[in-house]
């Protein structure tokens, strides 16, 4: 677009042109006027000079006539002095030769007349000057001088001429100053005119235009982009035109928009989910309400419109006035209020009112938004906030937020208490520098922060803090580091758990652990620690090492099975099962093997412990092999004792059926006898030949069967009687005994034993007596002790006789020793010995190794009973296969008490 001159420029230009025109007209009128004035002036000068010439003409004519040069000179001087403005006077004679001349000193101080112009007659210098010939004068030297020449006539005869050079300078300078003044005035006037015009135009015309344009441009900046439709009178006008066009198009649009807006508003009003009402400003009655309002109130439009002002606004009249005032001042915005719903429940609403025109009327537009849900959410949030605040406040662990820079932002009461402050506020007020106030030394916090920077998401550290009173606080600190927007560490969140007590407890525990470690090592019981998952042994104590004969390094790191600790797999499994159970293992008896293979019986108890986070079995075992043996003996004793108690009872019960067996068998024998009278009678009655029956009975061996029945019944009865013998022994009398004599008697009896002799000749056995001399006297029932010894001798002899292969040099060694309390008798054979099983059961009633029918299994039981119950002693056996058997009997020396009891 070509550059359009601005209005300001155009105005200025117009003014300048106007001024120039004014100047031109001035000049056009002024110059002729000036020339005419000048002519008048020159005529004046001409007249002056004429008059001078006339006045002096006679005098000068005389001089010329008389040729008095000097007088002429003087005369000229006189004129020069007399008339101002004369520059030179020259007097020519009639031959046109200068006779005298004078010059003004103002032109040439030396009075040289030639300095003005050559002293010549006027006609001679005519060509040099513009003259008016008719007037005999002319302009010389740029009009600054006038040359005047007049012929001096006397009596009509020309005697010469007087030439006067007149200084036109003053007149000229007067003219110049006139021009200057005029021009100055003129210029001033023009200038003023220019300035005033311009300013006035600017102020009252251009500026408002600019303002208008600018306003329009500002209103629609894009207006500049509109290409001008019309010519370009000026930029401003152009702008205004364009802006006007734009404005009018916008106005057209705006009207359309307003119309649409009106529709939209109506649509919004009708369909808005918020209740919108328009009340009359004057009395508050409804002017319009929307659907949402009607729905929220459960009213029809007619009902709503008929509501009274008070009902419509929902406020009392006095309040309405206040409210109206506020609305008039600009409106009410987002006022929270409670509102009743049609169903009676309370809704929270947000209420805004603004004044609006409604037709001719002033009205209030109110919008009511149901914020019940939001309110509830807010309440829930507040409750949640409260809840978390309470958690924060009530948590038994310390919770904090600290600035990375090293001060508290927040701390909960637990934290304050932990550090010995009365309240979080006090703590926040007093702890200004974390590293100084809550750490034992300034550097400590640095380490903590280093760790946090490496792992901002969260770290857990055990830290020693400093309480308010300077005492240490041991704490587990969990913390995370939060960064600001620029990624720099900003603040820390975390918790602090006071473990000071735990720490103390740990110290105590360590001391305790040392103690227990010693206890572990030095315990007389064997203790084994093993991993629960792999059963690998972690540690054993001294007792284990000494008891089982292993070096410590032979077992640690191994599984017990590897070195054959368990003698019995089932027991091992049971042990592990109990160990894994919740209650652990309590006094489980288990057979174990020493390194040398010896079996031992252990009573083991165990628990699963957590050691360094790993489940570990702690098993404590005690060698109860001896105890077990004792216990077995006790059980044996108990068994034997109980036999005495129950025997009497069961004997009666058994004897009755035995009686039936015996007596019915005898009846059978009697009723099959061929010689019994009653039998014969009955046989004859039925035609039976008793002889034949007898033959039959004998042939079929029936009598033998019946006999066997009788014998068996009797034997059973004998067994019972025998078994019960000892219950009657208590009545035996105790006397002072000679044990060696009793033994000798028993040996004699054994040698004469018929039953024994059948199988073995007792005399072949080498009997060794090893008796101490002078036994202390002691009481016993001689026959009973004799029975016991006889029984043992018989058993030994029988065992040696029946052993396969037979014992080559059978020997029975009988020894008697004593101490202060006991007499000890040992009876040892070199027979085949006893298997452990036999050995364990040897004192049990009815236990026998002899063929059925040959032994009652009661011999040793009775012996055991005689020694333990009858005499308060002990009876034991030591034996192993191939190594013979030793029975050990200990009898108390002081039998007085037991005698009395018996």
């Amino acid at each position, binding site marked *: 677009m070509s550059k359009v001159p601005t209005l300001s420029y155009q105005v200025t230009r117009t003014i300048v042109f106007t001024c120039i025109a004014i100047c031109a007209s001035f000049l056009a009128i002024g110059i002729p006027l000036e020339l005419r004035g000048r002519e008048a002036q020159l005529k004046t000068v001409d007249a002056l000079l004429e008059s001078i010439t006339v006045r002096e003409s006679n005098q000068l004519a005389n001089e010329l006539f008389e040729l008095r040069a000097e007088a002429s000179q003087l005369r000229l001087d006189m004129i020069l002095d007399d008339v101002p403005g004369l520059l030179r006077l020259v007097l020519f004679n009639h031959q046109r030769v200068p006779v005298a001349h004078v010059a003004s000193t103002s032109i040439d101080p030396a009075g040289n007349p030639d300095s003005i112009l050559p002293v010549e007659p006027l006609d001679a210098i005519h060509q040099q000057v513009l003259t008016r010939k008719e007037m005999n004068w002319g302009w010389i030297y740029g009009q600054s001088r006038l040359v005047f020449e007049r012929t001096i006539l006397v009596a009509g005869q020309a005697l010469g001429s007087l030439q006067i050079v007149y200084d036109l300078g003053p007149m000229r300078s007067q003219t110049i100053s006139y021009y200057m003044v005029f021009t100055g005035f003129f210029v001033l006037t023009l200038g003023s005119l220019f300035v005033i015009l311009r300013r006035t135009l600017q102020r009252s015309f251009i500026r408002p235009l600019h303002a208008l344009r600018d306003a329009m441009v500002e209103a629609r900046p894009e207006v500049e982009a509109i290409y001008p439709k019309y010519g370009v009178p000026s930029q401003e006008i152009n702008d205004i035109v364009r802006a006007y066009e734009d404005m009018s198009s916008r106005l057209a649009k705006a009207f359309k928009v307003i119309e649409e807006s009106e529709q939209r508003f109506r649509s919004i009003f009708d369909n808005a989910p918020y209740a919108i009402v328009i009340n009359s400003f004057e009395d508050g009655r409804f002017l319009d309400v929307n659907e949402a309002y009607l729905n929220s109130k459960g009213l029809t439009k007619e009902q709503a419109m008929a509501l009274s002002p008070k009902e419509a606004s929902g406020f009392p009249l006095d309040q309405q006035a206040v409210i109206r005032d506020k609305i008039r001042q600009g409106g009410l915005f987002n006022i929270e209020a409670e509102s009743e719903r049609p169903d009676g429940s309370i809704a929270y609403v947000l209420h805004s009112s603004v004044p609006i025109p409604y037709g001719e009327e002033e009205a209030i537009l109110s919008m009511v938004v149901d914020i019940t849900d939001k309110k509830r959410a807010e309440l829930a949030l507040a409750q949640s906030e409260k809840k978390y605040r309470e958690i924060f406040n009530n948590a038994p662990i310390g919770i904090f937020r600290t600035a990375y820079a090293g001060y508290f932002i927040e701390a909960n009461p637990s934290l304050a208490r932990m550090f010995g402050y009365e309240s979080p506020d006090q703590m926040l007020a007093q702890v200004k520098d974390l590293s100084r106030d809550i750490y034992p030394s300034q550097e400590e916090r640095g380490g903590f922060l280093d760790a946090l920077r490496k792992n901002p998401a969260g770290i857990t550290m055990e830290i020693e803090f400093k309480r308010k009173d300077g005492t240490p606080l041991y704490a587990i600190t969990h913390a995370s580091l939060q960064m600001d927007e620029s990624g720099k560490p900003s603040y820390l969140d975390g918790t602090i758990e006071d473990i000071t007590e735990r720490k103390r407890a740990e110290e105590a525990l360590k001391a305790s652990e040392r103690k227990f470690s010693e206890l572990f090592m030095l315990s007389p019981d064997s203790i084994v620690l093993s991993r629960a998952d792999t059963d690998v042994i972690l540690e054993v104590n001294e007792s284990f090492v000494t008891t089982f004969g292993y070096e410590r390094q032979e077992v640690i790191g191994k599984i017990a099975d590897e070195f054959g600790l368990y003698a019995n797999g089932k027991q091992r499994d049971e042990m592990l099962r109990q160990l894994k159970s919740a209650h652990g293992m309590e006094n489980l008896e288990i057979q174990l093997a020493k390194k040398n293979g010896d079996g031992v019986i252990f009573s083991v108890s165990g628990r699963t412990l957590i050691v360094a986070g790993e489940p570990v079995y702690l098993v404590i075992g005690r060698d109860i092999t001896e105890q077990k043996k004792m216990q077995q003996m006790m059980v044996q004793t108990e068994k034997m004792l109980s036999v005495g108690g129950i*025997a009497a009872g069961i004997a009666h019960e058994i004897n*009755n059926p*035995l009686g039936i067996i015996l007596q019915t068998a005898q009846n059978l024998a*009697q009723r099959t006898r061929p010689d019994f009278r009653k039998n014969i009678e009955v046989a004859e009655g039925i035609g039976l030949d008793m002889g034949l029956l007898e033959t039959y009975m004998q042939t079929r061996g029936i009598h033998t069967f019946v006999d066997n029945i009788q014998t068996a019944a009797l034997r059973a009865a004998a067994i019972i009687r025998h078994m019960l013998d000892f219950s*009657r022994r208590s009545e035996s009398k105790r006397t002072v005994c000679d044990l060696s004599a009793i033994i000798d008697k028993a040996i004699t009896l054994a040698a004469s034993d018929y039953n024994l002799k059948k199988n073995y000749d007792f005399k072949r056995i080498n009997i060794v007596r090893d008796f101490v001399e002078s036994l202390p006297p002691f009481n016993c029932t001689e026959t009973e002790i004799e029975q016991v010894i006889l029984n043992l001798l018989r058993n030994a002899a029988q065992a040696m006789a029946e052993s396969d292969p037979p014992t080559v040099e059978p020997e029975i060694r009988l020894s008697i020793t004593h101490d202060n309390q006991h007499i000890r008798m040992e009876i040892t054979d070199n027979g085949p010995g006893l298997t452990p099983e036999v050995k364990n059961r040897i004192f049990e009633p009815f236990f026998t190794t002899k063929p059925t029918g040959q032994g009652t299994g009661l011999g040793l039981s009775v012996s055991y009973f005689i020694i333990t119950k009858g005499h308060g002693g002990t009876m034991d056996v030591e034996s192993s296969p191939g190594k013979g058997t030793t029975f050990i009997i200990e009898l108390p020396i002081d039998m007085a008490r037991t005698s009395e009891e018996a």
Partner: protein
Amino acid sequence: MRPLVMIVDDESDIRGALFDFLDDYDEFRLMLAESAEAALGLLQQESADLCIVDMRLPGMNGKEFIREASVQGLCSHFLLHTGSIDDNLDKDLKPFGLTKKDLLLKPCDNWRILDRIRALIG
């Protein structure tokens, strides 16, 4: 008239066995009772010459029966036929004429019982 022998035993097989044995000899009249009380009731009708009495009986025991029958004069002789293993006669029974020979320990040989009956009342 043959002498009357009363057998008092709570075990029917024992009563039966003794009855069958003794009955074959046709020397006695035999009467059976399963308890002391029943025996005393029977003896009210006719006194017995001899009673073979078990010691353990339901209700009144053998010892009490002997005392009662003796006191009432319902029986002259008694044999104690017992399952007990004590071969000593209770001293309390001696006043009623019992000796150690009258103590018969079960299982007891029939002929020994017969001998003793014959000896006492034969």
